[in-house]
């Protein structure tokens, strides 16, 4: 089987599409499922731009084979906002100017969401440690950290 039918639930929707056995999950999302939100920064696990949530766990989709995720549940950046409102993290990233070129942003948002889901009140140290696998060449990180702190406050209030 070079091509195979991949069945997954992506952002709450049952999806079925053809993928190649050589595809990473990132390839399958972008090239087969048409979801361009997850970005390819390094394609080797170091930058976090491709981060998605796979069966409840944050993973780098470039380090997962598409064939592995048959019958899994995936949340991508496209599933973060509500139909008519942004996720608090998206709001605070905008308010804090926590992005410039934006390549790293989907990965930071998915990673930060996974953090706040498991630890609603993280310290600055915990935020920096959790986001260590996400690289940003533009912002210098401080604005990203502030955006995550603001989002935590907004969600908890």
């Amino acid at each position, binding site marked *: 089987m070079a091509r195979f039918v991949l069945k997954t639930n992506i952002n709450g929707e049952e999806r079925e599409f053809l993928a190649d056995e050589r595809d990473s999950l990132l390839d399958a999302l972008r090239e087969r499922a048409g979801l361009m939100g997850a970005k390819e920064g390094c394609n080797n*696990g170091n930058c976090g731009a491709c981060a998605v949530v796979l069966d409840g*766990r944050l*993973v780098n989709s470039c380090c997962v*084979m598409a064939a592995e995720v048959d019958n899994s549940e995936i949340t991508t950046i496209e599933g973060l906002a509500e139909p008519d409102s942004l996720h608090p993290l998206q709001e605070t990233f905008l308010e804090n100017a926590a992005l410039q070129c934006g390549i790293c942003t989907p990965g930071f948002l998915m990673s930060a969401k996974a953090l706040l889901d498991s630890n609603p009140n993280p310290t600055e140290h915990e935020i920096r440690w959790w986001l260590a*696998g996400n690289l940003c060449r533009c912002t210098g990180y401080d604005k990203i950290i502030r955006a995550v702190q603001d989002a935590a406050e907004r969600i908890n209030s």
Partner: protein
Amino acid sequence: MQTVTYQRASTVNEAIALLSDGGENARVLAGGTDIIVQARERARTVDSFVDIKHIPELMTFNYNTSDGLSVGAATPVYLLYNDNDIQTHYPALVEAITVIGGTAIQGRASLGGNLCNSSPAGDSLTSMMALGAIANIAGPNGERDVAVSEFFTGPGRNILDLGEFVVAISFATPPANSGAAWQRFIPRNEMDIAVVNCGSYVQLDGEIVTDARIALGAVAATPIMVPAAAEALIGRQITDETISAAAEASYEAATPIADMRGSVKQRKHLSKVLTQRTLDIAVERARG
């Protein structure tokens, strides 16, 4: 990516059959954080991935006071470091696995993968060696147990034969009055490969050392045990002097190469410093 097939094993025997039939270029796929990148960058020839994550016993772990800890080889490390028993009884393991990559890597990376990737710098390896961990291996000729300290044969190479794979890694229950610790040196705080890493274990009877194990990583072609460091401690009083003598033995045992991460001189020095620091903590833990 090179052309690869993907196969899922749901039992240990099925995995052995797929690996035996697949030959040398059939590779176990655990968390994939090493092998997928290596296959993509053609650092390794891979014709087929044998996914072992659907074998139930590969994805769980068990601790009890009589048998100790047994970790299914493909269990992602974040499940291990979040576990109360592992935090309480194996802090040296937690110290190593919390620094393997970042959050998204730890959601997938496994002890079996770190072991079988067999990098001289693999962070959990010196921790497992200090703890006296055993690899439980299954293959076409049955099962065998090999100490992690005897597992490596060179950079990226190990004792596994065709068709064999690691099913679990076992750790004895830490004896009374024992303690272990692990540290690495890297230029940043996270997300980097160790310049040197070190795991130490001691068991005390009062102030006398009755057992000790010191392991060093990234200072030779494989992670190494330092028997001379253990000998400098066993049967002696635990003092700053005996710890210094053990650290000196690590300095002598380290035969590193120089590369972009560190010089020979720096790595030898770090071997000494990390031995001393991990021993200090291990002793503190042994005293309780």
